């Protein structure tokens, strides 16, 4: 048997060698042109747009750049964006962990439908995501009168921006965790419980360490979207400078005023955030593929 496998191996090596020798000349040409096409496409659609943001931001020098991002309206927009993300991300984080726990640890009817419903906000246009809350809380909305009587404002105010952001970023954490926790099963938790741990201890000391990288992954994407959301926030914000302007809305105003340097300087902050997100996401991807690779092989 051992001899048979050696012969088979040699045969395969010989065949591979002959094939690649035959395929080498036209193959290399094709290979180079394929790589060329891919690089050109990625260059025109990904690299250059990213580059142009930083070049335009610094086109009038560092002083103009610094002035633009220290403008009081820019600073208040940055603060508002940070505040919105600081509330919206934890809300969806708690939901994501809870939903992933329910879906991955128990069997119940309608699970597939529940997962589809959680994905729903991804299928909704950002503008419609904003409109939905205008119809509920706007002046002509269902709760409009009730809110007006109590002097509460949701639409064209910070609560509306928060609601729209929560809606738009709703699925990210749940989506990152559900497949991960389903793959992990519930054996570790059951063992911890049988050893006398409480439910909460089991979650904190067994589940949480197991899902921390997946959780971080979901939070990263959720945060990037929360800080960058434009369409939904644009509908509910009212664009009041210094009050209800988030960073993306501030960029739009500057751009429409033909303040190129200001718009691109502010945009470069969000582009930096995107780069940080990408680096962290890539690091997590590599980490995951290293951890997961040995598990995948026996299945194939």
């Amino acid at each position, binding site marked *: 048997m051992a001899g048979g496998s050696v012969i088979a191996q040699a045969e395969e090596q010989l065949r591979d060698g002959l*094939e690649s020798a035959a*395929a080498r000349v*036209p193959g290399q040409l094709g290979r180079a042109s*394929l*790589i060329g*096409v*891919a690089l050109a*496409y*990625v260059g025109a*659609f*990904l*690299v*250059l*747009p*990213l580059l*142009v943001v930083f070049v335009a931001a610094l086109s009038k020098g560092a002083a103009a750049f610094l002035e633009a991002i220290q403008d009081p309206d820019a600073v208040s927009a940055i603060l508002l964006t940070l505040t919105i993300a600081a509330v919206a991300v934890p809300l969806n984080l708690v*939901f994501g962990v*809870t*939903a992933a726990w329910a*879906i991955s*640890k*128990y*069997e119940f009817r309608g699970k597939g439908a529940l997962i589809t*419903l959680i994905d*729903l*906000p991804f*299928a*909704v*246009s*950002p*503008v*419609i995501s904003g*409109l939905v809350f*205008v*119809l509920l809380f*706007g002046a*002509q909305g269902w709760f409009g009168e009730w809110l007006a009587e109590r002097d509460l404002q949701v639409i064209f105010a910070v609560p509306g921006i928060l609601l729209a952001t*929560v*809606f738009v970023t*709703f699925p990210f954490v749940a989506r990152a965790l559900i497949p991960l926790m389903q793959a992990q099963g519930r054996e570790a*938790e059951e063992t911890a419980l049988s050893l006398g741990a409480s*439910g909460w201890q*089991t979650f904190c000391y067994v589940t949480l360490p197991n899902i921390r990288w997946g959780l971080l992954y979901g939070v990263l994407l959720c945060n*990037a979207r929360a*800080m*960058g*959301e*434009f*369409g939904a926030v*644009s*509908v509910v914000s009212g664009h009041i400078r210094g009050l209800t302007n988030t960073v*993306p*809305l501030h*960029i739009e105003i500057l751009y429409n005023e033909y303040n190129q340097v200001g718009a*691109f300087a502010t*945009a470069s902050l*969000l582009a930096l955030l995107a780069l940080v997100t*990408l680096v962290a996401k*890539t690091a997590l991807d590599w980490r995951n593929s290293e951890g997961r690779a040995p598990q995948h092989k026996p299945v*194939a």
Partner: protein
Amino acid sequence: MSRAAARVLPGFGLTLGYTILYLSLVVLIPLSATFLRSTELGLERFIAVVTAPRVLASLQLSFGASLLAALLNGVFGFIVAWVLVRHEFPGRKLIDALVDLPFALPTAVAGIALTALYAPNGWLGSLLEPLGIKVAFTPLGIVVALAFIGLPFVVRTLQPVLAELDRELEHAAHGLGATGWATFRLVVFPTLWPALLTGCALAFSRCVGEYGSVIFIAGNIPMVSEIAPLVIMTKLEQYEYAEATAIAVTMLLLSFTLMLAINALQLWAQRRQGVR
């Protein structure tokens, strides 16, 4: 044994209850309210609003440009995914990481960046101008913005399937005398196309509702380069809430149908892969 232990873990009621409550408050109730509000208009008015020439033109543009962008990404996204999985070259890992940029870059930033790039005086626009190709402020600009948004959907759906592809089959085809192209067409492509279709459908569905990256580059001329989400926005600014809602509900119905179709497509693709 594991069946009996299925409910041993505590927190079923709490976690499922909270999941359904939060889902209802944030997503289901607001969306249902939108559908209910659209009925206030009456069927006749609803149809009149949705079939108004300007609205129809915008829906056609949103869906048409998204389709074109999906096709463009179907071809070039395929090549990008292929090159990233099959070939080793300097900068491969960097390009691989960069594919996710459209997920991470805020749409407004993408919008002004693409406009600056493809405007007549931009880096690429000034190269295309002498060839008579105008990108920014035309419907072509919309396709460019949507191609940017959709690229990662196609590449990321194809990559794992490409990586799992059984190279033995290609060797066998080659050994039997098939040319490279015949091997690709008859052996490789049939295994890949369900994933390709899924990726394109995901990109299409995301692009149909896209707003931020498009409005800067589009020019926004009614009947020519005005996308459907922008028409909703304009109606809202003119306080025509009922009309905006009617268009929104039409788009939601189309998007949800698309989402269900994609779910079915993914199931089918997975099953096909499993059978293989």
